[in-house]
Structure formats: structure tokens, C-alpha cells
């Protein structure tokens, strides 16, 4: 059996992975939206009477349509209620550790070379889709980084929630002002990874959407067997041939 080939009866995603994935979607949307509404109460990082070096948009509010919660107090309630949904992340990580799925995600020797080959393929400097396992090298990097930024967001979040009671934690991140900054950066990284992820799902592998609901995935539809780049070869190979024949007959 080749790597990446689905064994009969084995689902591509375990039900725990599928459930935690969709809980995560809701949690991330609400946490980011309410977090940005909280941020808008003071859309800057500088301590009063100081300047802040490393944020180019000090005192510029985030557009209201990107925020959630309606007002500062409401957004804080959503943020502090939904933070418990992030336990979901812990369930996911524990599961993939126990179930062995982590092997599909941890970086290995050769991943950088494989990532470069994916970049070359996506930019039309390589003809064939590089051979891959469950995920291609770029995907692997994204799915490996997401939990890391998630953990950073959680830990920095706790640090700015209780900067006095958990002062040692807050000081690990350079004090309250910097912990708040790293919390923002972690959010930004999660948003960027998620947006690219959703874009690539629709542009390269829409067949993975049902697989994240039912767990089933037909390897015939994988990007590798379709030789799919963003918006290229979206249909399975045989199907596109069918179309050509039919068109000729008409």
C-alpha cells in the first residue's frame, strides 16, 4: 500500500478530529471577533506616557464589522466564556498523540525540500504534483504551526487575564504590555493560517470538506492524483476526460 492511500474501511479523519475541528471553527471565530472588540477599547499597546516600538497602527481601531460582542463588556463576556471551548484544543492534541495521527504532522528531514517543491509546483515551475502522504509539505507545516500559535494565544491570554495573580507567567512574556502584544500576534498568525487554509480548501481540495464531516475521502480526488494547483484541475481526472468526450459528441 502506498503512503496516502486510504485503507478500506479506514476513515481519513477520526470523529474526534472532525468534532474538534468544527468546535474550533466556532471558537476561533468568536474568540477573534470578541478579542478585536476588546482591543478596540484601546487599539494600541503603549503603556500610558510611553511609546510602543513594534505596532504600526497604534490607536487605529479595527473595522467594526470584524468585531463581535457589540460593546466592551459584552465582548469580554463572550471572550471569557468561550475561552473554555479552547479545552477542545487539548482534546485534539491528546487524541492525536494517543492515536498516532501526530506522525502526519510533525516536521521531518526533507520537509523543507518538499515545501520548496510544492512552491515550485504552485508557481508553475514544476509540472507534476510532488508525491505526498496524507498532507503535502506546506499543509503539514500549517497544521503543525496552528496548535503552536493556539497554545501561545492561550498562554498569553491567561497571562493578561491575571497579570498580578499569575505575575511570573506574565513576566515570561516580558510583562503585561508585551504579553498583550504576543497575544495579538498569536491571534494574527492563527487568522492568517486559517484564511489561507480555507482558501486552499476551496481552491485546491474541496473534496476534503465532506471528509471533515463524514470522514470519508476518495484518494482518486486527492490533489496529487488530480495534479491540482489553486483553481487548476478541480475535477477528478476521469471526469474531466468524460466532459471532453461529451463535448465533442455535441
Amino acid at each position: 500500500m502506498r503512503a496516502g492511500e486510504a485503507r478500506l474501511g479506514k476513515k481519513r479523519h477520526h470523529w474526534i478530529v472532525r468534532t474538534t475541528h468544527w468546535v474550533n471553527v466556532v471558537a476561533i471565530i468568536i474568540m477573534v471577533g470578541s478579542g478585536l472588540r476588546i482591543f478596540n477599547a484601546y487599539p494600541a499597546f503603549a503603556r500610558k506616557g510611553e511609546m510602543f516600538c513594534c505596532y504600526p497602527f497604534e490607536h487605529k481601531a479595527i473595522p467594526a464589522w470584524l468585531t463581535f460582542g457589540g460593546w466592551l463588556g459584552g465582548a469580554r463576556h463572550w471572550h471569557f466564556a468561550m475561552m473554555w471551548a479552547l479545552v477542545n484544543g487539548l482534546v485534539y492534541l491528546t487524541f492525536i498523540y494517543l492515536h498516532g495521527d501526530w506522525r502526519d504532522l510533525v516536521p521531518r528531514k526533507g520537509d523543507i525540500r518538499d515545501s520548496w517543491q510544492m512552491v515550485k509546483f504552485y508557481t508553475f515551475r514544476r509540472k507534476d504534483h510532488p508525491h505526498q502522504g496524507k498532507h503535502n509539505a506546506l499543509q503539514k507545516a500549517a497544521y503543525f504551526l496552528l496548535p503552536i500559535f493556539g497554545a501561545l494565544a492561550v498562554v498569553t491570554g491567561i497571562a493578561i487575564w491575571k497579570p498580578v495573580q499569575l505575575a511570573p507567567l506574565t513576566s515570561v512574556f516580558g510583562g503585561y504590555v508585551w504579553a498583550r502584544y504576543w497575544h495579538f500576534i498569536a491571534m494574527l498568525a492563527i487568522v492568517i493560517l486559517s484564511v489561507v487554509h480555507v482558501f486552499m480548501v476551496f481552491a485546491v481540495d474541496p473534496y476534503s470538506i465532506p471528509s471533515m464531516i463524514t470522514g470519508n475521502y476518495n484518494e482518486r480526488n486527492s490533489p496529487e492524483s488530480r495534479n491540482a494547483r489553486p483553481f487548476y484541475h478541480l475535477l477528478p481526472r476521469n471526469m474531466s476526460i468524460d466532459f471532453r468526450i461529451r463535448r465533442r459528441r455535441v
Partner: protein
Amino acid sequence: MNTRKFASINGLDRRDFLIQGSGLVSAALLAACNSRGPKSANKLLNYAERKNLIVERKLFRHTSMDVVQSGAHEAGNKLPSYFIAPTVPVWDESARGKWALEVSGLVGNPVRLSLDDLQKLPQVSNRVNHYCVEGWTAVETWTGVPFTELARLVRVDPQAQFVDFQSFDDDYHESWDIESAMHKQTVVAYGLDGKMLEPAHGAPARVYSPIKLGYKNTKYLTKIVFMPKMNGGYWSDQGYEWYGGT
């Protein structure tokens, strides 16, 4: 009724239906954005706040101290000034007589303390952070009476579990859990950055503690009342968390 019939009755074919349908869905999503979220969620949010309160009170340690980062500058006149009255609240001696702070409630020895009396009590100066609910912080030095000294003076009844800090800034008040009030860094402050407190920041006296968010630190104090039950507060009653601890 088959789909085609249904579609033709409504003057829609499938493509129009998909376009208009997705338009409606995205309009609904946009309308939900920047809203307070569904009303039905309020129950869940209140439940979460009650549970978070338990967690927060469990996390509380009298030994946890706020420490100002080395190299941090004092905010000085950059410290924002907030009050709820339309103008800066100033104690009007001609109308209300001399200002005094009443410390009462579940205590053995209720007292009324003038500003002079307060200054004669043991004094501390704490250089600490101010944590605003909005997300900003400011470093200031607050001078005043440690709250524990006041508690000792009035002999607090063990049944007192909460403390209400009341002010003459309209009806502003905020009640605290007694543990937070008895924290070492909680002071009834009459001095800021080496000067007497100014009306902009709560003169003649205010409660100040880095272990509570700014809105819990009542300015323009008139009364400190020890209570068996919590008593809400100006901002807490409007929906901010009652605990507001850092």
C-alpha cells in the same frame, strides 16, 4: 410539488435561488457581526461568568504582588481621568460640611475619618500598575492608608465577606470580595506621585489596588461599608464583570 414547479412559481431558477440565497445568508452573517450575539446566549454567558468567578477567587493569593517592570515610565499627567458626573466632582465644603470618610457596616467600631485622621494612620506608597478594563496600563505611585490598617481600626466582624466602596461622584460605588480588599497592595489613597490627590483622580481619597481593574477602584470616597453580601456596583450593574480582578 417538484422543485422545478416550486422554482417557477416563485419566479426563481436554481441559479437565482443560489445567488439570492447566498446573498441572504451573508447579509444575515454581516448583521450578526458587531452585534451582541444571540439573546439566548445570555444565559450561557451569565453561567460562564459565575463559574469564572469561582475560578478567579480560587486563583487569588494574598502573596501575589504587582511588580512594575524595570524601566517602565510613570504615566504622570498621561493618566486618564474618569468620573461619571458631567463635571469633575469636587467636595463642596460650604454645602456638605467638612469631608469625612465613614467606615461602617459589620464592624465593632464604626468611624468617621477626616483627611487629617487618615494621614495620621500608618502610611504606605506603592509604585504599581493601573490595569484598565480597556486594556491600557499606567504606572503610578499611590500614597495612603493600607486597607488592612482601616480594617484593624474598625474591628471587622468575621461575617463581613464583602466591602462596598461608595463615592460622591453621583451614585458611583463598587463592591469587592473582602480578600481583595485585605490584599497588602490595597490602599485608601490620598496621594498620587508624591502630591496630594487632585479632583481629577478622586480627591480627597479613593481606594486603589493593582489587583482590581480600574473601574473597581472607587474614587471620591465617602463610605466604606463591610457587608455580608455583595452589592454590585456602578459598572458591574451595567454588565461589566463584578469581580474585575487582575
